[in-house]
């Protein structure tokens, strides 16, 4: 953001920027009076060389990288799993180091000031006593947490991470639109944007000496470590997230991984003996620092809000006695009130003895008579918003009101003036953004970040910029249709590379504790294993049907094929008629059913199975390697098969299924080769084994138990789905018979696809999993040995016997029995091993002692 420094050349008349005409009333970051600003010259030259096609390519590349990395943003109130892809414009916002240093001074002062304001409001309250801040403003503030009054955090740091929303006015000066002081989001997205853009525009990135972001995070990490109350060299820091439904969950997981912190939710933590612990499979581990991304009110149901069960009961007490560092400190949200902006200049003079360098957007609080009169008589030129909580409320534009709305608002302000503030509307500056129609000027806003360090603040050299699709002014939070941008601070000299992996402080204490795994995560990994395996089973099963449908069909094989496709749904839920003779065109019906199972939302269909897989993976994404996560994101029918009109072409479906199978194989390969063999991997594998055995038993039951169909085509299919045809041929040549097939797919403990193999593997896992108690351990093993025993003692010949009901009764009973054992085991694992996940409830909510 340049203070209209040297402008050198007129924009090239043709090419990328030919249609670039910024609106006259705003400051333009790129040009001044139709001339290019000096700071942009080199970059624009690079873009011109790329040309529209090159830029389009880069934009597409950026989109693909984001998609592969699964970068999403959940909109407030959107259903779970409905995160929308993160939008990133390929053209970064350029700011010279000189101007940035000036801004930095303002940001440091502002962060320091807000920290002092918090220290005062939660301490001596000199601001109130001296009349700098009206008491009504504070006492009306639901975010002013009385239980936190008097708590002094380590080092008197209340504000560890701060974010400011900045805008540039038409005269080129910068104002703060809003302050974020609770758990500011966006820093993680800034890193992700940087990774993507530095890969899409690598040569520019190096040529222009762009400042690196990593040092900022090292500062944050060091600062939290230094302030940690335990004084240990390597304190345990957790990142407390509100969970997968919250807007920035992607970022929570991303930051946790980037900073090397454990990602937790409220239920993963517990306060015992006044100290905070992480509930893991191996027991309780002490926590020194909580970097929170949760709202103030959702931190402690015991003291802060009795109707919220998100938080950690007893956390305020732990913070009060100095057992844990909570960053930002509890109650810091009070500094976010828009009305506070009106009093910051005076507070700055009182607390710091300085003038405020970086001003807020001009703000009038209606709780005082003078400003209120001004607002009432200038309503048409102002933006009106609630004085205190405003995150999800839309500001009211005075000039857009109808006469009756205007009257209504005026009377609301008159009846409770203290509830409202008015702000001057700001014309945000404009900057170039890429769209299919070329480069156009869009409104831009910048979110800047500062982290506490050694009694002062360090500002991230960069930030998160957002552009609005129309030239309307920018909404405050990321909302529909807004794209983000990387922010480049351009240094005059080459910049050192920094990485978070480089050992920075004292050498890390070696940790190989296998049980450092939150119980909730173990639970999710178990389900991820099950969903991955179920998807694979469904795909193999579907593929066997599609392969047969694409071959020339013998009418004689129709009965078996019908059974095969019916088995793709739960019993009685297939859309096919009971028998193919009931259908006028059975082949067409089969084709339609297979396509529906692939593309439509059906209970056991491919779509819903992949959907569950992705949702579960989302819950543990901080535990998955980047490569694994990329694969999960590619497991998307819409992505791999965008051609709606080709959905009934079986050949194309076959290609899709093969591709998916390769991706799943790659996922399994990564898990096998790259995951450490701790309980995390074990729970994933237990899930896979149980699901594989269950799916196998289901197939056996649906395909081999009915005795009125011809056996050999079904045996062939079964061998194919079990990936065991080769082994069978090798052993028995081509003679297909039931007992050897059953031996190979049920009993043979050397065949990785056989049920017996899964049971064996499960028995081994259960022997080595951490157990809460010995009795329980014995019970798990009992189930496993009962199942293995039942399988090993099976009389293979008897399994082939056909009952009077024309079914293979022995086989059916065996399949049911084994499935029963496996379900019992699954129950034991989810309910007993993972007891720590029990949720707490409110004593006073069940019954409170009431005064009468």
């Amino acid at each position, binding site marked *: 953001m340049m203070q209209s420094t040297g402008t050198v050349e007129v924009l090239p008349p043709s090419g990328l920027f030919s249609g670039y005409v910024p609106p006259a009333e705003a400051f333009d970051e790129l040009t001044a009076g139709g001339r290019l600003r000096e700071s942009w010259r080199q970059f624009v030259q690079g873009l011109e060389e790329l040309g529209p096609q090159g830029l389009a390519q880069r934009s597409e590349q950026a989109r693909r990288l984001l998609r592969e990395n699964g970068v999403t943003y959940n909109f407030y109130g959107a259903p779970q799993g409905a995160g929308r892809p993160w939008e990133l414009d390929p053209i970064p916002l350029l700011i010279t180091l000189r101007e940035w240093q000036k801004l930095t001074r303002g940001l440091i002062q502002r962060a320091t000031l807000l920290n002092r304001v918090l220290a005062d409001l939660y301490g001596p309250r000199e601001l109130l006593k001296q009349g700098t801040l009206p008491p009504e403003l504070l006492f009306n503030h639901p975010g002013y947490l009385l239980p936190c009054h008097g708590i002094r955090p380590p080092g008197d740091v209340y504000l560890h991470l701060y974010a400011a929303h900045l805008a540039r006015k038409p005269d080129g000066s910068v104002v703060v639109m809003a302050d974020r002081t609770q758990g500011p989001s966006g820093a993680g997205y800034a890193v992700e944007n940087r990774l993507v853009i530095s890969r899409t525009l690598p040569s520019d990135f190096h040529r222009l000496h762009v400042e690196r972001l990593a040092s900022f995070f090292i500062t944050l990490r060091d600062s939290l470590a230094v302030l940690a109350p335990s004084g240990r060299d390597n304190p345990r820091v957790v990142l407390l997230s509100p969970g997968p439904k919250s807007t920035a969950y992607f970022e929570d997981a991303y930051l946790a991984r980037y900073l090397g912190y454990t990602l937790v939710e409220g239920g993963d933590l517990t306060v015992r003996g006044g100290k905070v612990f992480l509930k893991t499979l191996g027991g309780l581990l002490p926590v020194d620092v909580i970097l929170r991304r949760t709202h103030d009110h959702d931190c402690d149901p015991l003291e802060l809000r009795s109707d919220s069960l998100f938080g950690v009961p007893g956390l305020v007490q732990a913070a009060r006695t100095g057992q844990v560092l909570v960053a930002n400190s509890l109650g810091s949200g009070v500094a976010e009130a828009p009305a506070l902006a009106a009093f910051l200049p005076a507070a700055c003079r009182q607390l710091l003895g300085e003038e405020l360098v970086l001003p807020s957007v001009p703000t009038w609080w209606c709780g005082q008579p003078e400003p209120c009169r001004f607002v009432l008589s200038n309503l048409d030129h102002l933006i009106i918003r609630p004085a205190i909580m405003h995150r999800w409320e839309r500001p009211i534009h005075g000039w857009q009101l109808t006469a009756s709305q205007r009257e209504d608002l005026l009377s609301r302000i008159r009846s409770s003036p203290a509830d409202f503030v008015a702000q001057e509307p700001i014309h945000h500056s404009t900057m170039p953004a890429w769209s299919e129609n070329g480069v156009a000027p869009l409104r831009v806003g910048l979110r800047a970040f500062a982290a506490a360090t050694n009694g002062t603040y360090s500002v991230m050299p960069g930030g998160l910029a957002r552009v609005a699709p129309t030239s309307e002014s920018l909404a405050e939070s990321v909302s529909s249709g807004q794209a983000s941008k990387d922010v480049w601070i351009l240094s005059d000299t080459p910049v050192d590379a920094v990485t978070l992996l480089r050992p920075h402080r004292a050498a890390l204490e070696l940790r190989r504790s296998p049980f450092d795994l939150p119980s909730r995560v173990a639970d999710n990994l178990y389900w991820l294993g099950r969903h991955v395996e179920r998807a694979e089973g469904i795909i193999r099963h579907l593929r066997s049907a599609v392969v047969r449908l694409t071959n020339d069909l013998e009418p004689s094989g129709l009965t078996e094929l019908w059974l095969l496709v019916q088995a793709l749904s739960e019993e009685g839920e297939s859309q096919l008629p009971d028998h193919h003779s009931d259908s006028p065109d059975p082949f067409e019906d089969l084709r339609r059913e297979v396509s529906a199972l692939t593309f439509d939302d059906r209970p056991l269909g491919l779509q819903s199975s992949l959907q569950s897989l992705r949702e579960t993976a989302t819950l543990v994404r901080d535990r998955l390697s980047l490569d694994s996560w990329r694969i999960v994101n590619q497991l998307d029918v819409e992505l791999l098969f965008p051609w709606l009109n080709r959905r009934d072409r079986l050949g194309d479906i076959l290609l899709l299924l093969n591709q998916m199978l390769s991706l799943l194989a790659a996922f399994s390969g990564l898990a096998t080769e790259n995951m450490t063999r701790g309980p995390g991997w074990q729970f994933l594998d237990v899930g896979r084994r149980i699901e594989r055995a269950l799916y196998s038993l289901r197939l056996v039951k649906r395909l081999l138990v009915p005795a009125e169909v011809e056996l050999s085509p079904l045996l062939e299919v079964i061998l194919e789905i079990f990936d065991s045809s080769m082994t069978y041929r090798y052993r028995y040549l081509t003679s297909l018979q039931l007992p050897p097939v059953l031996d190979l797919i049920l009993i043979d403990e050397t065949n990785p696809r056989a049920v017996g193999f899964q049971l064996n593997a499960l028995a081994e896992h259960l022997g080595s999993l951490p157990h809460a108690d010995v009795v329980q351990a014995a019970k798990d093993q009992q189930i496993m040995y009962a199942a293995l025993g039942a399988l090993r003692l099976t009389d293979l010949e008897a399994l082939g016997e056909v009952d009077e009901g024309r079914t293979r009764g022995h086989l059916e009973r065996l399949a049911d029995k084994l499935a029963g054992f496996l379900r019992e085991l699954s129950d034991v694992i989810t309910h007993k091993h993972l007891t720590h996940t029990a949720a707490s*409830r409110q004593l006073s909510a069940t019954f409170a*002692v009431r*005064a009468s």
Partner: protein
Amino acid sequence: MKYHVFHGTTYGYSQPVSLCQNQVHLTPRITGRQNCLRSSVDVMPLPSCQNGWLDYFGNQVHFFSVEIPHEKLSIVARSEVEVFAPLEVTPAQTPPWETIREQLHLPQDEIVLAAAQFCPPSTFIHSSAEAHDYGLASFPPGRPILESLLDLTSRIFHDFQYDQNATGVFTKPAEVFQSRRGVCQDFAHLQMSCLRSLGLAARYVSGYLVTEPPPGTPKLVGADASHAWLSVYCGSAGWIDLDPTNNLVPGIRHITLAWGRDYADVCPIQGVLIGGGQSTLSVAVDVVPDLPSERPE
């Protein structure tokens, strides 16, 4: 007047509770006209961790957590307090109520500043036109504040009916305005919402009412349980307590435990637990006057 207070609370659970964390306000605070001579809070099973501190409003808080599985939790608070009668205030000599409102709006000293935080809405008490209009009938321009307060207290006593079954612990004044029924907590909240809507400072007082009626006086409602009333800032006359449930100004038969912006700040027992299944609750409150004649010499 001296009293012995016994306040026992027992929770029973159908399934074991593995962890419970509690915060209780069960120790009588020391005030201008009340002295707490002795007090104790005993918890069974023995807590793994407990401590106490003065909360934001200066009330004594006990925190404890029981970290062994238990199917029964008992909390017994015992205390010995001495209560003195309030100073006689002549209602007609108290300042006009508007002057108090003006003071609170622009606090000039720390006493008024401290009072001003009882003006804004809180968890249970939201400003409403209904509360404002109901209250205003007792507050004609220039009327001395205590006259108005006594009038409002008496109107609430007569307009609303005491009914143990009409409301619950989370009932808000708006509902009580509708049903016209409730218990002491509801009447205190309701009167506070009227006063705050008028710009005055009112705080919620949690405490006990002496159960033994002195000979010749009728037994008061609200015996054998916790009681609640309110206190209002009256400028130079200080804070004056009012009991709308019994239509009187509390004297030596009201024992103060704690005060705050409303019930949520001073809830006698609040807690969070894991497990428990179905639960039962029994409470016993006993306030015994320590009469000199009964004391063995």
